[in-house]
């Protein structure tokens, strides 16, 4: 009982010729380095939220320049002094203009005879100035410091690192010694020295940042440049007679970009902390200008009874720092997936 297997030639279908078949086809569109990093960053919830918060802060802080004039900041209104938060329409103790006085909630607005149409979302300080305005202005100062630190990191740190690594030899040794000297002087000492020459304020803080904030960046860039220098494509470019300047821009900077971005994100929180710290101990930003550090210092004095005056700037400062740190971690993971575990 043998049944013959009958195969009909028609049931076969010839395969397409090898030439027609695109074996090498990649279904997904090819991504550039940045797109790839962006895709990974988008998966990190914390980083995306931080990025969003930071964008909002930037827009609000710098947008406020048109609405909050210098006069608004220094104009005192003693009749409105030390008013707590009052948001119309909300009746929760603490947000409705009431404050605990000797254990009981008292409507401070009513007690001080403030007209019923006047309200301050975040309350006022001891001179009756709107705390919300001052916090927004303080945030702007913090962000300016952040931008300045980034600027020096990029301008001085990256250039210094590339030149040091690229030149090598005696130049490199000398430049590294200079960095060693700079980084073995505590940051604070530099600021104090600056304060002695300049007035306390934004200028001396920014000068101090210009002197000291870029050393870590320069070190990392130098180390990476040393290894990139011997890569084939750089050798090829040199052999072809490309100028060092062009090699730096075309070959080194793009390949250093992940280090640059990550390191910048670590410099920024440090710089923001530094400014707040200096202003807090009274050698940073001074009146009539204000910053989060100044507000914290003012708030600290009356913390026992007017807790909101310290809490609001503290929260804003912490949110700012946490956002930069989270975004920094997210960017590190996105640009350098190896470190992610």
């Amino acid at each position: 009982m043998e049944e013959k297997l009958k195969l009909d030639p028609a049931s076969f279908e010839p395969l397409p010729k090898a030439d027609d078949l695109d074996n090498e086809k990649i279904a997904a569109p090819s991504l550039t380095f940045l797109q790839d990093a962006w895709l990974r960053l988008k998966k990190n919830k914390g980083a995306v939220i931080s990025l969003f918060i930071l964008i909002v802060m930037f827009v609000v802080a710098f947008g406020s320049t048109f609405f909050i004039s210098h006069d608004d900041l220094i104009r005192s209104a003693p009749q409105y002094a030390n008013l707590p938060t009052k948001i119309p329409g909300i009746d929760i103790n603490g947000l409705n203009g009431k404050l605990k006085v000797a254990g009981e909630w008292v409507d401070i607005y009513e007690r001080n005879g403030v007209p019923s149409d006047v309200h301050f979302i975040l309350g006022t300080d001891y001179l009756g100035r709107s705390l919300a305005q001052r916090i927004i202005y303080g945030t702007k100062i913090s962000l300016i410091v952040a931008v300045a630190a980034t600027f020096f990191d990029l301008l001085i740190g990256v250039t210094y690192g590339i030149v040091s690594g690229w030149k090598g030899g005696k130049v490199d040794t000398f430049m590294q010694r200079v960095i060693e000297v700079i980084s073995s002087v505590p940051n604070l000492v530099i600021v104090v020295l600056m304060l002695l020459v300049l007035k306390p304020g934004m200028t001396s803080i920014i000068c101090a940042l210009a002197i000291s904030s870029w050393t870590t960046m320069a070190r990392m860039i130098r180390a990476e440049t040393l290894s990139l220098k011997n890569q084939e494509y750089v050798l090829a470019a040199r052999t072809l007679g490309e100028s060092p300047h062009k090699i730096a821009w075309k070959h080194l900077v793009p390949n250093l970009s992940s280090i640059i971005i990550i390191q910048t994100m670590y410099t920024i929180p440090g710089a923001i902390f530094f400014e707040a710290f200096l202003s807090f101990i009274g050698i940073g930003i001074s009146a009539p200008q204000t910053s989060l550090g100044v507000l914290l210092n003012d708030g600290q004095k009356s913390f026992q009874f007017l807790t909101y005056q310290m809490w609001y700037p503290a929260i804003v400062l912490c949110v700012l720092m946490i956002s930069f740190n989270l975004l920094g971690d997210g960017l590190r993971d996105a640009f350098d997936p190896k470190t992610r575990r």
Partner: protein
Amino acid sequence: MRKYLLKRIFYMILTLFLVATLTFFLMKLMPGTPFTNQQKMTAEQIQIVNEQYGLNKPIWQQYLLYLAGMVHGDFGTSFQFSNQPVSYLIASRIGASAQLGVQAMIFGVFFGIIIGSVAAINRNTWIDTTATVLSIIGKSVPNFVLAVLLQYYIALKLGWLPVADWNGFVYTILPTIALGVGPLAETSRFVRTGMVDVLNSDYIELARAKGLSKFGIVYHHALRNSLIPLVTLIGPYTVALMTGSMVIENIFSIPGIGEQFVKSITTNDYPTIMGVTMLFSTGLVLVILLTDIIYGIIDPRIRLTGGSGE
């Protein structure tokens, strides 16, 4: 090794010399005078005071005297507290600052190691996530904000610990925590990363195959190797603690160097500013040198002669 050490010490002295020189000349450029009510003084009085403090000599002579004095540990006389030598002022205040700094460092590193290791062992669980969140918060909240909050809620509201002052160990607890949380957060992140690396290595696999207990593996094998890179953080921590001490000592009214420094800045007390500046710089330079030496000893793969980080 000896050649390397000599070279390092030479650079150290060079650095300190540069700092001293810069401080001195910037101090001379400084606006304002150290004497209050100078307008009210007669020319004769000003001259007497200037002579008393050696301010009438030409600048180069003042500079040389200053350098010579510094080599002998003499930083001049404080302007703020008349007739008090700066070296005495520093000596009488350094104890509190050193104690606070060392305690904060120990607190931060010790708990940082524990939290970091626990997070690494329980990687990708809720414990790990909690540790990460806490360390980000610890890194982000400025120590002076934390100090004020601790002082208010724990000392004032709950009354568990003294609010301020410096009279024994209980007084040191809150400032230590406030100062040590930054290093703690940094250490725990660092240890976690290092530990995760080490736990994936072959010799840990072997230890596990031998049937060692989890604790034994972590304590005897993993911890030691993941702690080595921690040594590099001592330098940055020292800077953070020096900076932090100024504001923490102020908040908790601790009679230390940092508090004195802030006061000297606001009162234009040049000799004290210079003295403390030199003290901070010397401290940092020494710590950096020690760190490099220790690193070379505990991890022989790093050759000291090869220079740092190469």
